[in-house]
């Protein structure tokens, strides 16, 4: 085994280890989803999902996150081709889209709390804020990580080791998009319909 092969081998192990972490994170989200589904109807006289949710902004959030996942994958392709400037450009776009997503989500939360629909109002709202807030927290950490990786691309050469690190960040971002699909459908969609 040459040195290069060895580098690829250990990086594969790291990616796999990160994948195992993502799977345990998925279990955390599953528990929060189960909590939300069980407590959804317990509004304690407060606002119901149908009265509260403003679907156009949720659609905007979903489209923004899907697009950011796409631009992130394009950034990763540029990294594989050693095109530093393109990679940074795509990751800046991903960062801006992620920031826009977070702004819409936070303004939605502020609006809910302003209407008196805070997490203390009912079991439904507690579970809603816990689930969506946990996802938002993951997005914030993803954005922080993306900034660090952009500096890394700008300042360091794109070795096998660097590429693997950036790949793990991209994997994390796609994973957050994957979780949001279910938040969009189960929390907002089914919450609105039923």
């Amino acid at each position, binding site marked *: 085994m040459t040195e290069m092969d060895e580098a690829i081998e250990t990086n594969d192990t790291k990616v796999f280890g990160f994948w195992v972490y993502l799977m345990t994170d998925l279990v955390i989200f599953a528990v929060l*989803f*189960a909590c939300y589904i069980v407590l959804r109807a317990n509004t304690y006289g407060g606002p119901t999902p149908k009265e509260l949710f403003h679907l156009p902004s949720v659609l905007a959030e979903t489209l923004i996150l899907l697009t950011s996942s*796409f631009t992130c994958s394009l950034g990763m*392709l540029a990294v594989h081709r050693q095109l530093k400037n393109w990679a940074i450009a795509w990751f800046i776009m991903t960062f801006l889209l992620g920031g826009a997503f977070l702004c819409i989500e936070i303004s939605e939360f502020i609006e809910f709390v302003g209407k008196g629909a805070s997490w203390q109002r009912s079991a439904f709202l507690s579970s809603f804020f816990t689930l969506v807030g946990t996802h938002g927290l993951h997005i914030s950490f993803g954005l922080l990580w993306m900034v660090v990786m952009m500096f890394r691309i700008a300042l360091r050469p794109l070795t096998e080791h660097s590429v693997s690190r950036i790949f793990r960040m991209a994997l994390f971002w796609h994973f957050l998009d*994957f979780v949001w*699909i279910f938040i969009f459908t*189960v929390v907002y*969609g089914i919450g*609105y319909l039923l």
Partner: protein
Amino acid sequence: MPHALSMRVTGFILSLMLTLLGYFIIVYPEFFYFKAPIAASVIFILALIQSIVQLLFFINIWKEEGTLWNVGIFISTVSIIFIIIFFSIWIIDHLNYHMR
């Protein structure tokens, strides 16, 4: 890597179409002649298709070479998730029914 690029573009277009279709079913279920429970199951199926699109086109879970440990651990996680969610709903609905 033109193949990789075309895969990303295909995945992106598919995911946009699935999202918009799901949104219209949520907002106008009567347009599709769906009652609420049927509309809910249809959008859930759309979400499952969407998640498979994401896994194949963006997360690239299926590697052409090497081991498929990542797929194995993903499937076991999905079964844990199924157990947690399905049985929570089942038990709590039963409790709710008996305490009425």
